[in-house]
């Protein structure tokens, strides 16, 4: 079978970006396509993200830049797919690139066209609450940073072409259809927010103070229309009271969306908390049906929102809104505790659900995949990443509504799937850059070249650039200085290289924009010219000068000179640094032989790498062994056996049963672990480790557990499997979860209860089943089973922490609970009382965490590197996690994560060597006192204490692990550590020149 080592990723949101980066890092060519002019998707519009309240753009921007700059990723923005022909391993995609009417090679993203365009259009990025021009850049951090002419709004006046100094405007550009040959396809087109204008009862579109949650997201954002202060759209006043209405367009069959969108409860709480932060004194109220805070540490967020931030929660579905004439306040009527109440609010936020993209039918036609009945990609429980067409995979919200970390995990998982069939083609289609030998600059007098950028008129319009160039020529060590219209353009790169050779430059300073986006480009230029890339420094005279002092030409020019002087001073002291190269052992250690561990092991082994799979128990399978029924109808036992069979028979997998880890040390690419079993000890060298140690079911102490007829859901399943047919069953949810001792939600129990209830109803339709719950958390498509259970007569009764059910044994079991509708106690005699027991972290977690120097969460699960964007990684490179070890989750989520962890691991395993940043810490061992303070402060475990010949303990930085943050440098009481590229001398030289400037 022919295979092509390239993958087409459709959709450049966070999921598409993550999948692309994982594939590109693992040696595949990636085409990342987006129909928008920029990648980034919906996440770019979000203000903060739950549960950490991280700024969305701050955490996303590095990924955007990473995808934009990756040599193996080709961005195909403003492009749509027309057709996908061929088969797994060898597809031909027909794509249509829409006319952007701006030459991407020439456009520098300066934005002059947008500023001069006479036509205004609705700014979609700001959800219509601001205006943009017809020639526009969607948002300031856009990747690629290229303008686009919106032909639907453009009147063709020709002004942008006249003002564009880069001559990038091409009015006669036409749509181009072209073909790509790829091996696999990943679909990540994301979702679209539900449009509530069809629900006329909520007044959206009619009442200015009724907004959607996406609009509110922009209202909260500092880059949004109101600069982050919440204002009433009707009159610009500060609102006192904001209400959030949940489930708008979700859990609502009238609008065709029976499913739960899964994310709205959390984002509403986040928006409420942030709104209160932005507008002190604002009162936020959330009207909801079930509060679905089912994710990792989400319930803690819920508790904090209520207890610390004072967000008011009202359990009531509000049916309609009314505008108060005159004030334009919004009046809500609702039922609480059986009483009809009325209350008016300044702003009502409709927490809109997640719809599939409006063109998902066209997309599915073009790509040839089936959709499920909700219009999302059709997948199955045990194959959550696979579409109906082999070789076409899916991830993110298009697979089903989900939040960012779940999307990211799936994206990595899809990357693993997409690379499996083309693994033999790894590395064949990627570009390898060769650089000339580096010039030795040791002992050579610094000769600095200074390149000052006009950035069109962005800098030149404010700062007197020729004056800055003249000034630069007078600075000590400067051998050459010049100005460029755009220093970042390709022709300037060639010019810089020529100048380096012609003037024998050995340091380069670029005075332009921010190093955060442009330093890698200039560093590459230095390498191409035979200079060490660390002999480069930037002066940020745009973002931090001309843009912020637009009306102070002289002062801005003086400041620009000062910034150049500081940069030159530092440049003179810069030293070439070597990038450590790590050799990697292409072997993986997977700890835990449950569903997650086995899945990870297979993904890696299938791509040709050796795997050691360690399982503590005497057999593989973990918790999957206890699962007899799934709501989707598959047979979990069969799936288990298939997996065990494949793992056991795989030539690349060595299974270590009845084995535990005794010790592990080393670092990314080079770990050494000791395995112990009854058979003795084995030492395994491996390049990566995946922790998939699972979880255990809580053994309840409450509700008479242990008595005849009282059992956990697992135990019920086992009994049902043996033909147990109870007539009256009472299921009690949240046993050991969402309590004081364990605040978290175990995520799977609501669906588990519904599944087992349906199973009982199947064999015994007359059975009376009661589910006593706090919030039914059947998120996503699982809501359909909840509805089905209710339709089939399962009775759901909500209880509260203050008034929990009571289980008594009086010649049989009897459960007493308060019916919240009738508001009186009901007693239910039961054959079986089934407890939804919590999922607990594995008791081995602490030991393992110590060995790999990775942290645990407060609940005892493993704590990932970043809750939002690095759900499968640890801060310690080369160690990954998947499944219940990360937190409670469903089977399909475990599989997605496990495949994802494998993909993350494959980015390391697939490379014989890894080059890491050279700007790292270094210890002067003669000055080290061995106090270990550096070791304590290092977040990355990059410090090891080494005993020297005299028996003295000295600190040593493991260069392969050090990230160069410099915390140890600032901590060391002996001053024994230097930070490469940010040495004290270098920083001091900047300070001194900065002060000279002040004196002058």
């Amino acid at each position, binding site marked *: 079978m022919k295979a092509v080592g390239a993958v087409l990723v459709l959709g450049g949101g966070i999921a598409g970006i993550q999948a692309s980066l994982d594939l590109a890092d693992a040696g595949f060519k990636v085409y990342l396509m987006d129909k928008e002019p920029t990648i980034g998707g919906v996440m770019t519009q979000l203000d903060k993200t739950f549960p950490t309240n991280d700024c969305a753009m701050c955490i996303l921007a590095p990924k955007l830049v990473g995808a934009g700059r990756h040599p193996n990723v080709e961005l195909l923005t403003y492009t749509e797919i027309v057709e996908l022909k061929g088969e797994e391993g060898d597809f031909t995609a027909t794509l249509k690139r829409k006319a952007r009417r701006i030459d991407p090679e020439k456009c520098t993203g300066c934005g002059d066209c947008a500023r*001069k365009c*006479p*036509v*205004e259009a609705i700014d979609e990025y700001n959800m219509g*609450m*601001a*205006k943009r021009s017809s020639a526009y850049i969607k948002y300031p951090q856009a990747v690629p940073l290229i303008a686009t002419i919106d*032909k639907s709004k*453009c*009147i*063709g*006046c*020709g*002004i942008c*072409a006249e003002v564009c100094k880069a001559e990038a405007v091409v*009015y*006669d550009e036409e749509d181009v259809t072209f073909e790509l040959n790829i091996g696999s396809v990943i679909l990540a087109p994301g979702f679209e927010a539900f449009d509530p204008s069809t629900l006329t009862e909520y007044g959206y579109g009619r009442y*200015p103070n009724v907004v959607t949650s996406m609009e509110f997201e922009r209202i909260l954002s500092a880059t949004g*229309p*109101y*600069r982050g*202060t919440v*204002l009433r*759209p*009707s*009159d*610009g*006043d*500060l*609102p*006192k009271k904001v209400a959030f209405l949940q489930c708008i367009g979700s859990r609502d069959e009238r609008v065709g969306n029976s499913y739960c969108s899964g994310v709205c409860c959390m984002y509403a709480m986040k928006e409420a908390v942030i709104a209160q932060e932005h507008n002190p004194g604002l009162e936020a109220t959330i009207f909801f049906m079930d509060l679905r805070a089912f994710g990792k540490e989400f319930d803690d967020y819920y508790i904090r929102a209520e207890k610390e931030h004072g967000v008011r929660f009202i359990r009531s579905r509000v049916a309609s809104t009314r505008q108060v004439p005159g004030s334009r306040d919004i009046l809500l009527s609702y039922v609480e505790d059986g009483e009809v109440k009325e209350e008016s609010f300044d702003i009502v936020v409709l927490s809109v659900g997640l719809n599939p993209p409006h063109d998902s039918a066209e997309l599915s036609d073009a790509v040839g995949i089936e959709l499920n009945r909700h219009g999302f990609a059709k997948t199955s429980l045990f194959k959550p990443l696979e579409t109906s067409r082999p070789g076409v995979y899916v991830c993110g919200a298009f697979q089903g509504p989900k939040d960012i970390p779940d999307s990211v995990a799936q994206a990595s998982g899809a990357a693993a799937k997409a690379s499996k069939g083309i693994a033999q083609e790894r590395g064949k289609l990627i570009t390898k850059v060769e650089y000339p030998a580096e010039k030795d600059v040791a002992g050579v007098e610094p000769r600095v070249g200074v390149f000052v950028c006009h950035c069109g008129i962005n800098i030149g319009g404010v700062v007197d650039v020729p004056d800055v160039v003249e000034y630069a020529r007078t600075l000590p060590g400067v051998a050459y200085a010049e100005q460029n219209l755009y220093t970042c353009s390709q022709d300037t790169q060639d010019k810089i290289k020529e100048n380096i050779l012609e003037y024998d430059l050995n340091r380069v300073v670029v005075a332009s924009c921010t190093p955060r986006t442009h330093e890698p480009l200039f560093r590459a230029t230095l390498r191409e010219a035979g200079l060490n890339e660390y002999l480069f420094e930037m002066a940020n005279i745009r973002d931090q000068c001309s843009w912020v002092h*637009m*009306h102070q030409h002289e002062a801005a020019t003086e400041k620009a000179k000062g910034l150049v002087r500081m940069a030159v001073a530092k440049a003179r002291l810069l030293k070439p640094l070597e990038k450590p190269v790590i050799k990697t052992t292409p072997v993986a250690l997977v700890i835990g032989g449950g569903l997650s561990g086995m899945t990870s092991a297979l993904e890696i082994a299938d791509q040709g790498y050796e795997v050691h799979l360690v399982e503590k128990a005497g057999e593989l399978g973990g918790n999957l062994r206890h699962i007899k029924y799934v709501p989707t109808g598959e047979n979990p036992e069969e799936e288990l056996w298939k997996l065990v069979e494949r793992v056991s028979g795989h030539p690349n997998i060595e299974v270590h049963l009845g084995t535990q880890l005794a010790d592990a040390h080393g670092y990314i690419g080079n770990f050494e672990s000791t395995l112990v079993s009854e058979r003795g000890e084995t030492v395994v060298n491996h390049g990566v480790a995946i922790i998939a140690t699972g979880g255990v079911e809580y053994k309840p102490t409450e509700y008479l557990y242990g008595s005849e007829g009282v059992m956990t859901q697992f135990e019920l399943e086992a009994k049902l499997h043996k033909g147990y047919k109870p007539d009256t069953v009472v299921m009690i949810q949240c046993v050991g979860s969402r309590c004081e001792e364990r605040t978290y939600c175990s995520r799977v129990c609501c669906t588990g209860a519904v599944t087992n209830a349906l199973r009982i109803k199947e064999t015994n339709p007359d059975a009376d089943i009661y589910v006593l719950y706090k919030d039914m958390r059947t998120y996503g498509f699982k809501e359909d089973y909840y509805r089905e259970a209710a339709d089939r007569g399962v009775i759901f009764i909500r209880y509260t922490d203050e008034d929990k059910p009571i289980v008594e044994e009086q010649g049989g079991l009897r459960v007493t609970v308060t019916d919240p509708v009738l508001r009186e106690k009901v007693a239910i005699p039961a054959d079986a009382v089934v407890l939804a027991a919590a999922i607990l972290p594995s008791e081995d977690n602490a030991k393992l965490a110590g060995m790999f120097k990775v942290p645990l969460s407060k609940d005892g699960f493993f704590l990932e590197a970043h809750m939002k964007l690095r759900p499968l990684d640890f801060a310690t490179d080369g160690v990954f996690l998947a499944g219940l070890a990360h937190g409670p989750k469903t089977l399909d989520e475990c599989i997605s994560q496990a495949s994802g962890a494998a993909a993350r691991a494959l980015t390391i395993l697939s490379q014989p060597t890894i080059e890491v940043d050279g700007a790292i810490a270094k210890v002067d061992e003669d000055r080290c006192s061995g106090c270990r303070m550096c070791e304590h402060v290092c977040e990355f475990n990059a410090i090891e204490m080494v005993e020297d010949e005299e028996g003295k303990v000295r600190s040593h930085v493991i260069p392969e692990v050090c990230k160069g943050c410099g915390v140890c440098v600032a901590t060391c009481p002996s001053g024994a550590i230097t930070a490469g590229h940010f040495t004290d001398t270098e920083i001091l030289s900047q300070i001194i020149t900065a002060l000279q400037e002040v004196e002058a």
Partner: protein
Amino acid sequence: MTDFEPKIIGFLCNWCSYAGADLAGVSRIQYPTNLRIIRVMCSGRVDPALPLGFLAEGADGVMITGCHIGDCHYIDGNLHAKRKYGLLERLVAKAGLEPGRIMLDWVSASEGQRFADIVTGFTDQVRELGPNPAVTDPCVKLNLMAAKAAAAEYRLRALVGKEEKLVTEGNVYGEEMTQEEFDRIMEEVVETEFTRNKIRLILSVKPMSVKGLSAETGIDSRIILDHVVALRQRGWVDLHEVQGNSPVYRAMEVQ
């Protein structure tokens, strides 16, 4: 009002109209004394901001005369004058001033009599309208100043500058644009630029809230907020303070 004598400013192009006025003199043709003539080289020089400025300062009428179409000394300068006059008309209307206070006509170097007739007719017309309300009504004055500021805006000037080309030769895509289409676009831009400049002027006198601006202008506060968003984007307006529940904005000095 019988003793009211309007103050009228006339912009005359050097080559035709100014010569026509001279001819009226040489020919001793009599016309009212109300007109003060400003010589410009071409009627196309008459930036709409200039007449608007005069009107804001209290002039009762502004007339512009140029060469007849086809006779312009600068090829098509008078066509540009016509386009610019179109903007002037729109802005005068926006400001709520009577359209009869401005006029554009063509007078050749040989039309001394015609010149005198035009001046007489226009003077009568303006006299009939009475004194410029801007003198007594600060609202009208503010509107005219806003109109003047809008006329100085890049967006409007760029559009006017492109009008001739767009409606006669089509746009850069080779698509035709009718005068009606252009007028629709123009009207939209004039409306937004006028309102935004008006808001900015009001705020430069006194910081105000969105609601205050709404009361002052009679425009729905929701639309005012949209304009404030745009004005903040441009750096023309910023938050001044918060009074009670209302953020109060002020105009920024713009260089």
